[in-house]
């Protein structure tokens, strides 16, 4: 088996004038839950389509479980589970029939896992798929995906639109169902609470580029918030905020400047001081704020780790 579960090198995909993926180099090792966070249009879905070989890249290469995405064997294809937010299933079929159909495609299908996962959700095998709620469809999809015993499970915003109870069941089933083999999970979500609870690795994408690939804690530690009395910022730097090292965002609250920066040590305080700022204080930042700062900034994009 290759070193990485997913690996891309200088992957680029262009649609018309738009770069959906821009020179993306990303390695995801085997095992664990990797969250991918990014604004809408950051290129997450394009990345999955390229990985699964549904689309071909404009340039660059990507591999999935050691095989090139443009030439995936049936064997590797069978080792990938995919659940997206739509939870699309044939509405006219009964649950049991859909399950049997799915099962026939996957030789490694495990009944025990299916039963354990579906038990989290109130799904009757005799029901028609069309009468299932969104949460039940999500649970049914997850049950089938896990029963396939995938080496790689891709979940693209699976809990979107689910109520609290269904969401909780979904996350519980995902995290606590015992599967014997090591599985790598890629989890796309906009829900920061979910990301904080389940992610071991945090991948951040913006405009088709990789911005971060580290543990959430390491990422959070990169971002710091500085508060200072610093009127000169406007006259000195205009509204562009150029020249501030590691700049992410700035807000003025009650006349105080709140500045979020990345990869700056305590000497950033000295920098502010040197620029004539007064009453300088450093505040801690939580994960959501750190992520948002990255996703909203349009300047001085930090280099990927």
């Amino acid at each position, binding site marked *: 088996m290759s070193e990485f579960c997913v690996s891309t090198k200088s992957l680029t995909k262009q649609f018309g004038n738009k770069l959906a993926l821009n020179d993306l180099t990303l390695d995801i090792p085997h095992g664990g839950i990797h969250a991918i966070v990014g604004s809408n249009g950051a290129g997450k879905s394009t990345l999955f389509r390229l990985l699964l070989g549904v689309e071909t890249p404009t340039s660059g290469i990507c591999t999935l479980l050691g095989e090139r995405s443009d030439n995936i064997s049936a064997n590797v294809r069978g080792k990938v589970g995919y659940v997206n937010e739509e939870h699309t299933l044939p509405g006219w079929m009964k649950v049991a029939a859909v399950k049997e159909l799915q099962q026939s495609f996957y030789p490694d299908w495990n009944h025990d896992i299916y039963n354990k996962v579906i038990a989290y959700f109130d799904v009757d095998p005799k029901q028609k798929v069309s009468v299932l709620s969104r949460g039940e469809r999500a649970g049914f999809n997850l049950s089938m995906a896990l029963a396939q015993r995938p080496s790689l499970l891709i979940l693209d915003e699976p809990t979107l639109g689910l109520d609290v109870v269904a969401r909780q069941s979904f996350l519980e089933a995902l*995290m606590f169902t015992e599967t014997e083999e090591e599985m790598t999970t890629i989890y796309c979500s906009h829900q920061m*609470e979910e990301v904080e*609870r*389940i992610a071991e690795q945090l991948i951040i994408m913006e405009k088709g580029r990789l911005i971060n690939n580290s543990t959430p804690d390491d990422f959070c530690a990169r971002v710091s918030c500085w508060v200072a009395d610093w009127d000169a910022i406007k006259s000195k730097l205009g509204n562009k905020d150029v020249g501030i090292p590691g700049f992410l965002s700035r807000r003025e609250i009650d006349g105080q400047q709140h500045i979020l920066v990345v990869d700056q040590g305590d000497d950033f305080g000295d920098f502010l001081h040197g620029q004539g700022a007064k009453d300088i204080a450093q505040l801690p930042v939580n994960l959501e704020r750190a992520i948002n700062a990255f996703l909203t900034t349009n300047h001085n994009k930090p280099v990927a780790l």
Partner: protein
Amino acid sequence: MSKSSTIKIKIVTGDIRPIFKQIVDGIRLEIATGKLLPGCKLPSYRGLAMQLMINPNTVAKAYAELNSQGLVESRKGLGLFVSENQQTLSDDERIEKLTKAADIFINETVHLNYFDDEILTVIKHKLQKIK
């Protein structure tokens, strides 16, 4: 096999402390206040993860941290237990931790305008309570 103790800690998302740190702090407080006694068995990774609805590997990371701090110890095949002998920090580490905690305390209380003696009385009383 001995039953594991219930750990009454809470975690919150959106905090400035990562979840693993919240677990470490929470369990350390439980031990310091005598709610978890030396020799108590801790829940499994999975068990505590289910209770807190978080990734089991985050609990594993917190337990590893508690282990390296000497607060808990693993017994082969039996699980993780609160250490019998808690003092494993060096003198320098102890004084550093004490100073840090004192800074936070002073920061929280200096504006309340109590006399030093009054503050010390409250602290003494609290310390006696947990001993």
